[in-house]
């Protein structure tokens, strides 16, 4: 279990804090979605958890151990990040990109071993992009590239996986395909997965737990059927929202005012 405890963060030379005491927990084998409007502090939260920014106060615990002060090489064995914006500088092949996930397991002066390569191969197969393995991954579609990054995080073999808006650049079909794959993997490998996502419908459909963040604070946390309601969503996004029940699942719509 990963716990975020009372996280406070503000930028240097800035008086307004971005995170004002964020506390929540994420369970293994469950997909936890982080919902929040632009500027609510989702990205900052992720950067604090991955250790890229240092929170002024608070801690991140994994299985009871504080990992807030871990070095990147140690932290990478616990947390794997699936980044969102991604501009590959050189046209690495898919397999070369995935095997980079093994960095934390390979010695400073070594190359990846046969074992590392096998882990990367397995991850590529698991995600279902084996046929792309020697393609340059600058030349594949956005959905496929997202799968490559998920495979890379899988190869990293960290018990916690952070996904930074994995669907934001994808079309409708690929959004569903990628989220379905993520959900499968999270169950199968019993990964503690934390995902930021913009679309509350997708969050409701795929996640096991939802954390709503508004203005640097946790607005509410719980299973989707408990917390995804008109009251919370309207508070979260600051617009009128209605929620319908359709075939046992929920559909979220903005309330359209007649002109």
């Amino acid at each position, binding site marked *: 279990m990963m716990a975020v405890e009372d996280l406070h963060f503000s930028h240097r030379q800035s008086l307004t804090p971005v995170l004002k005491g964020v506390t929540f927990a994420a369970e293994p084998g469950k997909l936890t979605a982080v919902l929040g409007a632009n500027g609510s502090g989702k990205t900052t939260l992720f950067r604090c958890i991955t250790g890229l920014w240092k929170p002024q106060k608070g801690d991140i615990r994994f299985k009871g151990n504080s990992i807030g002060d871990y070095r*990147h090489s140690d932290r990478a064995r616990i947390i794997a990040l699936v*980044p969102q914006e991604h501009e590959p500088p*050189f046209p690495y092949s898919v397999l070369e990109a995935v095997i980079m*996930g093994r960095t*934390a397991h390979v010695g400073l002066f070594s190359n990846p071993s046969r074992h590392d390569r096998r882990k990367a191969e397995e991850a590529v197969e698991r995600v279902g992009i084996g046929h792309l393995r020697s393609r340059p991954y600058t*030349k594949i579609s956005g959905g496929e590239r997202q799968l490559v990054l998920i495979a890379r995080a899988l190869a990293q073999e960290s018990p916690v996986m952070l996904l930074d808006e994995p669907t934001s650049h994808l079309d409708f079909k690929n959004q569903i395909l990628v989220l379905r794959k993520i959900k499968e993997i999270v169950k199968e490998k019993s990964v503690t997965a934390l995902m930021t996502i913009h679309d509350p419908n997708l969050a409701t459909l795929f996640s096991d737990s939802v954390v709503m963040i508004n203005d640097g604070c946790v607005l509410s946390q719980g299973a989707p059927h408990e917390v995804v309601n008109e009251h919370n969503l309207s508070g979260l996004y600051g617009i009128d929202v209605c929620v319908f029940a359709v075939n046992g699942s929920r559909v979220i719509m903005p309330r359209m005012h007649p002109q």
Partner: protein
Amino acid sequence: MKTKRLIKLLILISPLVAGWIALFVGSFHVSPVSILKILFQAIAPFSGLADTPETAIVIDIRLPRVILAGLVGVALSGSGVTLQGIFRNPLVDSFILGISAGAALGCALSIGFLSWLPVQPAAFFFGIMSVLLTYTMAKTQGEVSRLPLILSGVIISAFFTAMVSIVKFLVDPHKLQSIVFWLMGSFSLSDWRLVTIAGIGVVVGLAPVFLMRWRLNAMSMGDDEAKTLGVNVKRERIIFVASSSLAVSVAVSVSGIIGWVGLMVPHLVRMMTGPDHRTLVPLSMAGGASFMIFADTIARNLTSFDVPVGIITAITGAPFFVYLMKKGGKESWGT
């Protein structure tokens, strides 16, 4: 896949072939076969295969020059590929952190005013000093990251280049001529002592780069991503920058400033064999060696006197580069 393997193999053995050709091409004719005999004789003196007047020319004059050119090529190209990787920028070359301008000032001062100071140590120390200055300057912004480093390098280069201009302006024309000649780069002063110096510099400098080369892949994904992959970016970047700077400073001190190699060879090799630094780094080193030997062979045979090799690297490299760019298209630049 198979042709790529073949290309890699050819690049790896190319320095040997280029070196062999460079040994029998020259104003004094030595046949290709007797080159092999002489080399064998030098390795195994008891064989009694060849003991001719040609031996002196090959062993004492041509061989150190070829090896020195090869070593300098390895240093420039190896550091070029390293810096391109960590700065994720195709316009970066081995001189981006100000080494060439610093070394140029060292040389200019030594020739112009400080006659007690030999050119090589002066160039070496000023080269290293310029990198340290660049690094210190980048550090004033907090954590040293990519853009401040490149910017500081540009600023330090501009500053030292201006200082070189002042020296050039003040010294008398004879000294000016030697400064200008040195700045263009040449292997005409090669001997075994310089080969030893360059050899030590290249091995000490590039050994860490060679051993850590696979990590350049993760580092080329950008600082943040490299950190989440488990790279201790700060520490490893210092190792890469320091070791490649050492190799380049030594190379510059023995040969002058030879442009283009550190920028171009890594690109050529990347276009031909792919971006994985595990193979790219050694192949760039080999490619740098053979390209430099090739350029130097042209430099000393084109006319009756030694043309500065820096001119040759630019003249021969540019068209080939344009050809590959056209053929490989934009994606081979990684954009």
